């Protein structure tokens, strides 16, 4: 979903940087708070970061005949809240901008806003809403991850359409064009991301029950050994 280096006019590049910065700063504060209060959560935090790192390196083919990558931010957002992901996601984007010439420094604000801020916020609320409505945790995780992924690409399309409104048709025509490239390509990938996130969630449930309990994502089971 990266907007490539230099592909946003200066005004917009600055604007998105200014929008993204407060979230990143709040994110740093949220991360320090989490790790200070519960140092044992560092393991899960590293895991959430690594998950985003892997998924955003996987450029997968899509039915539209082009390739894009999942974002991996839904998992961390559900575990630690959206602010923590604003830092982890931005770090991944910074790495890609500096070392892979993928995305860019001038467009980092915009890219961070779509992938590391808006996506995780959506994931967090979709998870909570689905849990309230259905109480089915796996469905909630799947929807959170998949829709956050999709939303990331929709936001990217909005950002590009705002900066480059079409001479005929304006913002709407431009948005349709960019969304045709990004959002449609992303639909199968968003489903993949949802499935992969549930897969990792299954592992977390089996192997890190204490940490999840701490995050109040699972309730303490009444000492049963039915799984053995």
């Amino acid at each position, binding site marked *: *979903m990266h*907007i*490539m*280096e*230099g*592909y946003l006019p*200066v005004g917009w590049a600055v604007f998105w940087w200014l929008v993204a910065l407060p979230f990143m700063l709040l994110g740093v504060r949220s991360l320090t708070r989490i790790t200070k209060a519960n140092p044992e959560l560092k*393991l899960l935090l*590293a*895991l959430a970061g*690594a998950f*985003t*790192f*892997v998924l*955003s*390196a*996987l*450029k*997968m*083919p899509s*039915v*539209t*005949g*082009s*390739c*894009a990558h999942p974002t991996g931010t839904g998992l961390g957002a559900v575990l630690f809240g959206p602010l923590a992901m604003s830092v982890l996601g931005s770090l991944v984007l910074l790495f*890609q*901008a*500096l*070392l*892979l*010439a*993928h995305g*860019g*420094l*001038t467009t980092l604000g915009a890219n961070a806003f779509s992938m590391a801020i808006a996506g995780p916020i959506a994931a967090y609320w979709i998870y909570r809403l689905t849990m309230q409505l259905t109480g089915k945790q796996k469905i909630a995780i799947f929807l959170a991850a998949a829709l956050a992924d999709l939303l990331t690409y929709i936001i*990217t399309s909005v950002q*590009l359409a705002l900066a*480059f*409104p*079409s001479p005929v048709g304006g913002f709407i025509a*431009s948005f349709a*064009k*960019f969304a045709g*490239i*990004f959002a449609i*390509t992303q639909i*199968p*990938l968003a*489903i*993949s991301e949802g*499935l992969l996130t*549930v897969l990792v969630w*299954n*592992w977390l449930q*089996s*192997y*890190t*029950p204490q940490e999840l309990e701490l995050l109040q994502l699972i309730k303490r089971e009444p000492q049963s050994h039915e*799984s053995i």
Partner: protein
Amino acid sequence: MNQSKKGMSNWLLLGGVIILSALPLVVARNAEFAGADDRAAKAVTEVQPGYKPWFQPLMQLPSCEVQTFLFASQAALGAGVLGYLIGLSKGRTERRNHHEDAD
């Protein structure tokens, strides 16, 4: 959910991902599968023909091969950390269960 049922659902999840990423190669056989980023950059110059990117990446990759190397490294690093952490927690959980059983 018991352990074998969970294992089964994990394989199904993985299978779903593999099908989703293999299917496009069959369905859209003749497509070029270029990156969506590049296509968006092209679209920008279609909407606004005169637009020139005003900033260049600090590091220019010498070739496609180098880019593949870096992307593979990113995936390998991430997957390595992920695998290590999951293995670590698995070991811890198993040891704890073992202790509980022994008590």
